[in-house]
């Protein structure tokens, strides 16, 4: 990390974070800095400790050990002025819904010192047509957008998004990405957990992968897993019809030599550049093989 980003205190600073439930460590020693203005994606399978970590940062859960600072405050003791600077979109949507979208947003706006304009937020999440509809009458994806709207109505400096696009159709997800980018342009720090690796790739400046309560990898999204994990793969079938696979930095040369050897078009030829999803799945598999009981312990 260069000096210009570290000069200002990071939005989130975590040192040696642990969270123990009985004998099980849900979070088992995490160190992480998230500078201001960054969009950070936290990835990991269910039960790996993503939500526990996020909820400790939000002040919902108490940590067992370690140091945590969020916008300069300890979340376990964050007061109302501190909460006014946060936006929180929880993993689970609320069921209550006798209020209309507009009523709910106007009401929540009153809690904050500098709320955003209600109509602007409704438009930003694409619910103009539903502004006067009761939340209980909305579809799951629309209700999720209300959750997001409630998360940003207070003009947060730091926005937590815990699996925000679950239940969105592809178009709604793209609209949502646009919204997140505009928040980012405005300088909002965003901490995102998601199951969608393309989402992390689209939005995240950096990403971290949590497995068994540990951060196994952190880095810019396009460098996650290290250079080796990104080496292109060439796949084809040889003369006997057996699947072959080679990892190489010179895929074109390899393809040319295969074509020369076969003296014709290779069957099933593919050149694959591993996506974030491939890299992620490799890491999860590797961790599972290295510590088979760690996965079970947190499941």
């Amino acid at each position, binding site marked *: 990390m260069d000096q210009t980003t570290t000069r200002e205190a990071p939005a989130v600073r975590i040192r040696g974070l642990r969270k123990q439930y009985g004998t099980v460590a849900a979070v088992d020693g995490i160190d992480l800095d998230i500078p201001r203005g960054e969009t950070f994606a936290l990835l990991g399978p269910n039960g790996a400790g993503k939500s526990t970590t996020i909820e400790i940062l939000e002040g919902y859960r108490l940590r067992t050990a370690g140091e945590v600072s969020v916008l300069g405050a300890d979340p376990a003791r964050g007061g109302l002025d501190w909460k006014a600077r946060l936006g929180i979109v929880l993993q689970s949507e*609320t*069921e209550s819904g*006798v209020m209309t979208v507009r009523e709910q947003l106007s009401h929540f706006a009153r809690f904050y010192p500098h709320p*955003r304009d209600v109509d602007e937020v409704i438009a930003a999440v694409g619910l103009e047509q539903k502004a006067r509809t009761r939340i209980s009458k909305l579809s799951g994806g629309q209700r999720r957008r209300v959750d997001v709207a409630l998360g940003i109505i207070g003009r947060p400096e730091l926005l937590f998004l815990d699996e925000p696009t679950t239940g969105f159709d592809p178009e709604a997800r793209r609209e949502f990405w646009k919204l997140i980018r505009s928040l980012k*342009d*405005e*300088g909002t720090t965003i901490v995102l957990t998601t199951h969608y690796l393309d989402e992390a790739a689209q939005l995240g400046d950096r990403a971290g992968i949590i497995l068994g309560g540990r951060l196994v990898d952190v880095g810019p999204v396009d460098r996650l897993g290290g250079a080796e994990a990104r080496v292109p793969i060439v796949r084809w079938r040889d003369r006997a019809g057996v699947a072959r696979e080679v990892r190489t930095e010179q895929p074109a040369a390899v393809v040319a030599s295969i074509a020369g050897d076969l003296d014709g078009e290779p069957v099933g030829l593919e050149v694959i550049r591993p996506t974030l999803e491939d890299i992620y799945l490799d890491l999860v598999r590797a961790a599972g093989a290295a510590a088979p009981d760690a996965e079970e312990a947190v499941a």
Partner: protein
Amino acid sequence: MSTTDTTATTARRARRGIRPTGRPSGTGTPPAARPGRLTVGTTRIGYEVRSYFRSPDAVFFTFLFPVIMLGIFTAAFSASGEIQPGPGAEAVSVGAYYLPGMLAAGMLLSGVQNLAIDIATERSNGTLKRLGGTPLSPVSYFVGKIGQVFVTGVLQAALLLLVASTLYGIALPTEPEAWMTFAWVFVLGVATSALLGIALSALPRSGRSATAVVIPIVLILQFISGVYLQFNQLPEWMQNIASLFPLKWMAQGMRAAFLPDDFAVLEQYEAWDLGWVAVALLVWLVVGLVISRLTFRWIRRDS
């Protein structure tokens, strides 16, 4: 026309995403003050009242229930003549006799039943967790809840009195002292009920079990405290048990306000004992306040 224009403008704005703000970022400017707890609390009252009247369960089982019960009692006992506390004493109709009890039941339902179920449900469906992540103060939240109880309780009492006097021809008191008694018993009783409702909301482990936990408590209290059954006809041991709980005193205070003074002899100690009504309600008010203060959390935070 102007609405179309606004929609078009907002749509254009939406395409650009959230508008960059004019708010100065960084450290130089002092943070603007959050809206005050009471200001926010006052806006919560309106929000809470609106959401109450949009919930069919609350409207039927809390708001209209005493009115419906008064109707049933009046109809069921219309043929059984009047109730007279003693020879030569002033008699009143069965409906008139039960009206104070129904007013007391309304106070209990609007406070205890309504808030205990409402808050337990909000805890289990994630509403409290969400609010706990905002700069809403618990004080504002309680101002909203207690305000909701007062607003709905006043409307309920007004509806009961209106129905009683117009539909069932029950004569309401004309002396100002009677209405003064009504006013303080009502205010104290509703405040006590509201705090006890908040306190009781800590008991159910889930929103679904809330009704199952709260309704029996409220129902038993109504049976032993002289709401559905004539209090002076209950066995003494039952009267003594009822005296430990606030509803008996609310009902007694309401009878003092609405029944002729001759009826005082039917009370447990043959007097209205308004001083004891005040003491009992104040004690329960403090109990409710202390339990609420000690048990309320936005979420059950693990350690």
